């Protein structure tokens, strides 16, 4: 199944990847060539096959939902420029207003 340029631009948009025009052409060729090798799978009869999403012995074990917080090197506040109400305040975008001022 050949990938079109429109496909590449669409999936790049879904994946939040900026792709310029020249790179879109390259990726169209590269992805089409790679996917051509995948076509062999369509010949395999898998009607009676259970899907494998993981290979852990006996599947993923269930456990109580009581995970402890990870051991951090420092206090939470040391990993962000600022915090408010227990949340990180990340650096603002140039197009956004300053959250510190907005919350003042």
């Amino acid at each position: 199944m050949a990938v079109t340029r429109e496909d590449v631009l669409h999936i790049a948009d879904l994946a939040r990847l900026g792709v310029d025009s020249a790179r879109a052409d390259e990726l169209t060729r590269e992805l089409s060539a790679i996917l051509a090798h995948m076509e062999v799978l369509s010949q395999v009869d898998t009607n009676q096959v259970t899907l494998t999403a993981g290979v852990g012995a006996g599947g993923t074990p269930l456990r109580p939902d009581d995970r402890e917080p990870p051991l951090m090197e420092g206090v939470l506040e040391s990993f962000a420029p600022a915090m408010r109400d227990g949340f990180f305040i990340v650096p603002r975008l140039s197009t956004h207003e300053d959250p510190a001022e907005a919350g003042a």
Partner: protein
Amino acid sequence: MVHASFDRARKIGAGPDALNIFLHADEDASAEEAASMAERIQGAADIGILAGVPVAVKDNIATLGLPTTCASKILAGYSSPFEATAITRLRANGALIVAKTNMDEFAMGSSTENSAFGPTRNPHDVRCVAGGSSGGSAAAVAAGITPIALGSETGGSVRQPAAFCGVVGVKPTYGRVSRYGLVAFASSLDQIGVVGRTVDDAALGLESIAGFDKMDSTSSDADVPIYRLSALGKPAPKARNPDTEAMRIGRSPVPLPPPPDANTLAGVVIGKPKEYFPETLDPNISELCDRALDRFRSMGATIRDVSLPRSPLAIPVYYILAPAEASSNLARFDGVRYGLRVDSGKGLKSMYEATRSQGFGPEVTRRILLGTYVLSAGYYDAYYKKAQAVRTLIADDFRAVFNSGVHAIFTPTTPTPAFQVGAISDPYEMYLNDIFTVTANLAGVPAISVPIGRVRGLPAGGQIITGHFDEYNMFRVAYALEAGLGAEAHR
């Protein structure tokens, strides 16, 4: 020993202008840690089975004290606020983490050429790649800088560079080693693995990091036996500190008996799968494998022809499933929470796109797009779902062989020895480097690469695969192969 490691690194040219093995190292901090370890040893305190041993760690495994960048511009300068369980266990066993090693960006590659910081070169021939994606870890051990290094596997990323660099590389059973703190690439395939100078070093390293971890929901609580022949007859370490002992969870209180002799394989059945010895295989690699199989026979093993008929489908399956999982796992690198941000001044979506397109290299971009494509509406059933089903068939093939009385499978690790830097530009041709290793990841079984000789002066590896959680027999056969080949393994 720490200074010896750094001296060796300087002497051999491990820096970015030569072999380019390390991304981050701090000799002063490592020396301080070593001094503290020396005090522990002097005081006969709890020193662990790796006391004072310098260990290098692949740069996608979170470490306190050194950055964790996955060899990507998007994580340049990032330091993890927490540490991987495997690293905590290494430290609890006395190891000294001396450096973070170069790798293909986010572990996507087979040559370490996809590192944002330049390729690692092979210590045996600097014109050649070290393999990948754990190329820096394999090169660190091959160059004699550290006896043990940690790498990670998704499709062969420890075994393939180990084969290219003439050292031992082991991928444990999926679930054997905690993935907590390993930066996720493809979560259903990822495992931390060990590179060692010898089989015993690799066994020592794996034994130190294996075992259940409540921080990883796919971690197994199966007992971890002592794998090392060198532990035979040695008393258990004493005066253990309860705090560090807690990190050694998973060790069986009554270890399975180690094999009595590295030179016997009496009663062991080794399968030779025809799909891994195609007519197109490099005849020199084929000859080295035949020699290894002869040694197995001379040690009493039975060699049986077997078939893993769906193995030729493994590369297409892997390059659908791994990119699909990667496209989801790497969505978190968006310019908000980690490292790089490129603010184009056009709003949030534009910032995401600019950050990710400038932060990720070409191979990571290609795989994210491939993964997004096979998961997108209209293609999900034809690619992703189909690949999951064929993965089941590949795992069934292994199960059938092991259920038929075969204890271990022997194959070449790679179809060729190391190639020259820049020699492979076609992405799919590069993917074919994983053709003999990727099946063990898809099936979740353990596998080890052991040096079996040289081709045109470059190392080649032989691979031993066993059933789920049967690392014991895998090491048993690996010890025997190493002993059987002796010095021939490196010439």
